[in-house]
């Protein structure tokens, strides 16, 4: 059983510098969990506490039933892939992968078997004698993975492992990592600042900001039901539209349009949120139609995004790419009311 539990974990450097605040997450056995958030949000610190590279100021971290707070990193039975890969530059690929096994005083024959099998499955069989500096970025990344795989660890930690790869290789490696996770059947905890990686790879995602866990859930859950403005804004590209609105009698009124809410809310001022794909050239309900003065047009082939003003608010819309729109035009757009969000302007929590 290799579930991982963060139980009220706190990381405090000084009395007024706390980088992880009351962190509670349970990662199930064999789950692919992604910790995501902007840089400095505490996600790497959480991972490093789990790895044993940082002390735990308060709370407990458990692997299975075992509390690991006071267990040295080398005895936690976890492997980690670093952002820089942290390959040992003076050792060959073979020795890099053999090193953790040598540390366990494993028999030479067994080490050889494991390194050979891991390296061939990663396509590194021909590079075993090379030093890391003679490898390409993608190959180095795979050596780092191999070094983790050979150990057959209980938990697999990955700290931004793709950020040093170019875009094409990154997309390809994302797929390979998911396959690897399936093949190994091990718990993966993956840290990234890239919400696309998080959405595409994670079984579940834990979103952090400023040391505080914002929301844990499946990618679909988080996309469709963000718990607060931060999560809503962090996930999805282009980012969700936020406009100030007043709710009265089930109708939210913004500066440039008004829309009937699908669910009754008490009268309040708040923030209305809707994703760009909810604002389209199809007008399902003339009541909630809006007039946009277009500033910028982004044509991506499959999509066309319009950036402009609706009343006093900046709004992004996704329209049919075949529509001809030029900056300066005014265009009438409709809003899909099924995917509206409404946030409390004080607590920033989702009310809808």
């Amino acid at each position, binding site marked *: 059983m290799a579930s991982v539990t963060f139980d009220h974990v706190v990381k405090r*450097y000084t009395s007024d510098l706390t980088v992880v605040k009351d962190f509670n997450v349970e990662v199930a056995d064999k789950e692919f969990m992604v910790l995501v958030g902007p840089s400095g949000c505490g996600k790497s610190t959480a991972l490093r*506490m789990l790895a*044993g*590279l*940082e*002390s*735990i*100021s308060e709370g*407990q971290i*458990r692997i299975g*039933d*075992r*509390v*690991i*707070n*006071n*267990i*040295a*990193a080398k*005895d*936690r039975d976890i492997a980690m892939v670093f952002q820089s890969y942290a390959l040992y530059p003076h050792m060959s690929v073979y020795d890099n992968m053999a090193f953790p096994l040598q540390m366990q005083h494993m028999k030479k024959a067994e080490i050889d078997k494991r390194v050979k099998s891991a390296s061939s499955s990663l396509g590194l069989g021909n590079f075993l004698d090379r030093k890391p500096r003679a490898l390409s970025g993608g190959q180095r990344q795979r050596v780092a993975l191999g070094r983790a795989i050979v150990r057959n660890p209980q938990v697999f930690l990955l700290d931004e492992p793709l950020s040093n790869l170019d875009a094409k290789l990154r997309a390809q490696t994302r797929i390979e990592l998911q396959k690897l996770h399936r093949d190994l059947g091990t718990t993966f905890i993956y840290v990234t600042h890239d919400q696309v990686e998080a959405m595409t790879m994670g079984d579940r995602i834990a979103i952090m900001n400023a040391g505080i866990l914002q929301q844990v859930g499946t990618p679909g859950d988080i996309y469709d039901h963000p718990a607060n403005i931060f999560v809503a804004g962090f996930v999805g590209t282009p980012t969700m539209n936020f406009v100030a609105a007043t709710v009265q009698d089930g109708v939210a009124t913004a500066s440039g349009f008004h829309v009937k809410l699908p669910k009754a809310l008490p009268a309040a001022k708040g923030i209305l949120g809707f994703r760009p794909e909810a604002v389209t050239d199809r007008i399902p309900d003339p009541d909630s139609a809006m007039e946009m003065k277009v500033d910028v047009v982004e044509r991506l082939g499959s999509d066309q995004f319009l950036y402009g003003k609706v009343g006093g608010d900046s709004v992004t819309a996704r329209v049919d790419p075949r529509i001809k729109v030029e900056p300066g035009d005014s265009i009438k757009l409709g809003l899909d009311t099924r995917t509206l969000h409404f946030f409390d302007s004080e607590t920033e929590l989702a009310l809808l």
Partner: protein
Amino acid sequence: MAEIGTEATPRARRRAAAVNEGGNPGGGWRDHLGSLAFLAPGAIFLLAITVYPLAATARNSFYDATASNYVGLANYKEIFSTSSILVTFRNNVIWVIVFPFLVTFIGLVYGVLSERIRWSTAFKTIIFMPIVFSATASALVWRTIFDLDPHIGIVNATIQTASDWINPPGLYPVDPSAGQSVAGLVATGVSAGPKDSLESSSTVTAGNPVELGLIGISPATLQLVGAQTAVVPTASPGAVTGLVWRDFSPSNPTARGQVLPDELGFPGLKLTLLRSDGTSAGTAVSDAHGDFSFGSVGSGSYKVQIDSSNFSSGFTGIFWLGTQSLTPTSSLNQTAQALLSVPLVDISMILAYLWIWAGFAMVVIGAGLASLDREVLEAARLDGAGEWQTFRRMTMPMLAPVLIVVIVTMLINVLKIFDIILNMAPGSSQGDANTLALAMYNFGFTGGLGNWGLASALAVILFILVIPAIVLNLRRIRG
């Protein structure tokens, strides 16, 4: 198993807290112990051989020669009231003022210029190589180079060659510095003339051979230039004739004034016939027998002059390792002289030390030059700066931190200057070339038991002098 960690016994909690304070994860106190075990050997050496002794030296400086009785400030008072010790401060000041800047300047010039030649690697290697010379070996090398004897010292040999070319020495050099004088050569019929020349004592006329006797030149010297038996020349009408001979007969030592068969002539002498008004009426050179002749001079009375060039000793060497002062201090009292003179040996030693360290300065500055941001320099050029302006307004300011490092490094280095003085300054110059570090050694470890109190006080002064460098280093590391 789960209970081990969750069970929050006071001891476990304390331990966890202690671990957390150090920022030390999981592993517990053993990790600290490991790190400290790594630290221990170095710490023991440093504490026992540098840190503690520093304090002990400070203490010893207030104690007497055997470091057993407290004497207060007596050692310091002695240092600042003894002129032979004050000389060490003067020398340290000379070294500190001259050397660091000179070596940095040369390093900068070489660093910049060598970038522009094809053989810069060879050049840099040549300049840098002396850094492996011990100060001892280098002192010995330079002692030879500056040797007084032009047959040994290449500096004096070079000067001699140049000087001989301009002002060649005579056949019969008379060295005033060896206590010789031209007037000391006078024997018969000659007397001292103006400016180290000799003249016939009486006037001479044509047809009457004149005999000029000299002494003080060895037969060996004369034979070396081909001298033969002196022969009185026959009279020749209309010509002034005569001879110059060595007026000393080994067989008849007391017979003076006569030309005897076992006496030698002076060959090769340059002679001038002078009219009574002192103007020249002709010149002649004596032959192997010492004979000379000024032909067709007509009647009148003359004097024969043996030119001073015959006795010129030429250049005989500068004592580069001597204590003659480069600053005029003779009018000052003794203490002021000690404090204000700049002995020549200091400069010679500085040159020798420069030879060792210029390569260091060049290499450090060269690395600084290489690490300058090229784009900044290119931007300056595009902004219209010329080469000199780029160098002065861009390169120099950007290089300033490197230059300061070199200057400070060299400054600390020469504050502690020791071996080169001990080995290069000859015994007669040691006292005048003395430095703090050398005096500390001499007081502490030579001459029987030594004076440990005084030596410690000197060491403390030396330490105080490097404190600014310590502060500078710390600032550099932290900032």
